[in-house]
């Protein structure tokens, strides 16, 4: 569903992402880990179509910047930014219009809003929401489009324990529904129960790409490999 082929991104003289390639299949939860400055955010922004890059990024077989790719792609950014003067409901209605969603979007929206305890906040303006609430709204906007590929950048930051639990449940539901999920995070514990594939980045490169099964066979934990590949010698 998501194919990243030879992605490279240079800022002036700094090679932030160094020709990386990976894939996230339908019905798979991939987690992108890495220390600060590893190139995760640049990779995420490139996939979201916000940056120019060398290489190829395909979503559902279409270039990530194409309208066809964007139609099936949901994105939860690291910093939730909402329209100050749109209500929660209006944000979702805007998304429904922008993505030309079918009639069922309202039903889906209310289900997500209820799961994140936002049902009584539908008429609140963006400016009246706390950071956690803005993050919940951002998640609802990404999910209401019924994405076939969804990307979360530090999705747990600012969420209350109930919302975190709910979100983890949603990750699993998305996987079961055949959606490809890519999660970028620093908090390894937060995704320990749900991930299928780990991609560890360091100094602009993917230094490790393993499935859960592969790690379990070697009896290694996510935390162990993270520190080994980000502190020690790098290489696949």
């Amino acid at each position, binding site marked *: 569903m998501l194919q990243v082929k030879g992605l490279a991104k240079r800022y*002036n*003289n700094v090679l932030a992402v160094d020709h990386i390639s990976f894939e996230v299949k339908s019905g798979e939860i991939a987690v992108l880990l890495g220390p600060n400055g590893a190139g995760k955010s640049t990779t995420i*922004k490139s996939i*979201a*179509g*916000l*940056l*120019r890059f060398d290489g190829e990024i395909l979503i559902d077989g279409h270039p990530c*910047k194409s*309208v*066809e790719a*964007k*139609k099936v*792609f949901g*994105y939860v*950014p690291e*910093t*939730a*930014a*909402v*329209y*100050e*003067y*749109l*209500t929660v409901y*209006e*944000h979702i*209605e*805007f*998304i429904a*219009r*922008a*993505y*030309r969603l079918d009639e069922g979007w309202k039903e889906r929206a209310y289900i997500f809003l209820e799961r994140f305890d936002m049902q009584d906040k539908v008429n609140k*303006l*963006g400016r009246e929401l706390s950071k956690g609430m803005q993050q919940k709204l*951002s998640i609802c*906007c990404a999910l209401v489009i019924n994405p076939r590929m969804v990307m979360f950048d530090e999705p747990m930051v600012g969420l209350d324990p109930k919302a975190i639990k709910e979100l983890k449940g949603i990750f699993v539901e998305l996987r079961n529904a055949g959606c490809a999920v890519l999660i970028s995070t620093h908090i390894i514990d937060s995704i320990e129960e749900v991930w299928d594939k780990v991609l560890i980045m360091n100094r602009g490169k993917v230094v490790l790409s393993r499935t859960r099964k592969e790690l379990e066979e070697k009896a290694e934990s996510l935390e162990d490999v993270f520190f080994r590949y980000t502190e020690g010698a790098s290489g696949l």
Partner: protein
Amino acid sequence: MSALLYVIRKQLKNIIRGLARKPLALIGYIIIGMMMVGFLVIAIIMPSGTVRNVDSEIFSAGITGLMLVALYSGLRQGIENGSTYFRFADVNLVFTSPIRPNRVLLYGFIKRIGTSLFVVMIALFQIPNVKNNFLLADYGIWAILIAVLFYSVSFPVLGMLVYSFTSKSRERRVLVRRILDIAAVLFILFFVLTLAEKRSFGEALVAYLNTEVFSYIPVAGQISAIASAAVYGIDLNFFVNIIVFVFIIGLLITILSKLNLDYYEDVLSATEDFESRIKAKREGRDVTLQKRKVRSVKGGFSSSGAKAIFEKHMLEYRKVSFLLFFDKSTIIAVIAGIGFKFLMPDEISSGVYLTLFFSAYMLFFLVVQGKWPMELEKPYIFLIPESNARKLLYTTLTENIKNLLDGTILFIIACFIYDASIPVILLCIVSYTLYGAVYIYGDIICRRLFGSIHSKTLLIFVKLFVSLFVVLPGIILFIVIFSTLRNEFYAVLSVMLWNLFVAICLFLASMGIFRNIETTQ
């Protein structure tokens, strides 16, 4: 596109609804709105050229000069940072949606026209000044307002275009920088030639900036010609320039949207910068502070208690200021104060006290952008185990010293220009500093009383009214004493004593600011 229009429509509706729910804010906005309408009416009906009738060529030269400086700095800034019509919410929700980038650009353009109307309204405040000094043609103010609107709408396009070209490689950045520098050198060179011919700086500058060649510079030339119609009259040339301008901007937008569909990255940096500026403005911080170069300085703290706050401020000043308290605001204060003397006819600006009052007015806007309110965003100031009076004194001490030094520089220069007596100049310096103190402690009172007000812009208006209200008796006292005794010294002394009294009262009333953080929100 309907989704994007939905966002614009709904936001407008919610802003109006939100105001209806907050009567105090609504009243504030109605007053501001009435003032705007009042200014528009005054701008239209007041006769022009009554105070003085400055040559129309000076007007057009001034406008051309402004446009050329704006074009040069806009393009230079565009190389580094680009420009943006967008907010972070647009980046996160619109850029990632399946809406075509050229439609997104059009949406940004429509939004920009909306915000540009606000810029046009601000320009309205300057129309009476223009009318006082220049004889405007029929419908001349509309020419100025159209020029301001066109300027505000078009310059971000130039910024985006230059960034999208230069961001591709270092070589391109160097190339564009060199082209701009060569253009600037040529500009100066040809001016020097004109100067050699005319032998008078003023005459040469006016003649040079009125050279026809500048009217052919895309965008800047047309805006300058449109604005100049204010004094030369609205004729065929005015409409031709509007058509040429619209054509050029249309062409530039087409280039931006058709040839460079991948412009999202080009606006990311400028959007981040824009967001941090908005945040700083809302928090009452100096928006340029984060951009300044920070020097490494030697020496740390030697005092303890509340004095440490003062030392911290001094340390910060030493890191960011060129010469301790001497910075951009000093230059603004001096230029505004002294410039006032030269802008006003002699019979109006005959006494140094008028520079004092005008500088005091300008000082308000410098004080509301001061650095000390940044302390209120962090918890440390509230936690320091010292009395509120000492904390307030030392927190605001650097600002008061800065005002004293700015006032000293300003009035020493004014002393020579007005040929005023030294005792009067000394009183002016102290009065100027005390005006600063009144604004600082008045600001705190306003934060305590109206801190939760709807909008920070409205809060500035409230502060302006409160400040005017408390300093007005001093001005009335001045008028009474000056008109009865005809003595400048006693008249300024009365202002100084009144300001001292008010500053002490406000200081005592505002001490509670550090009692809890809530009052600052």
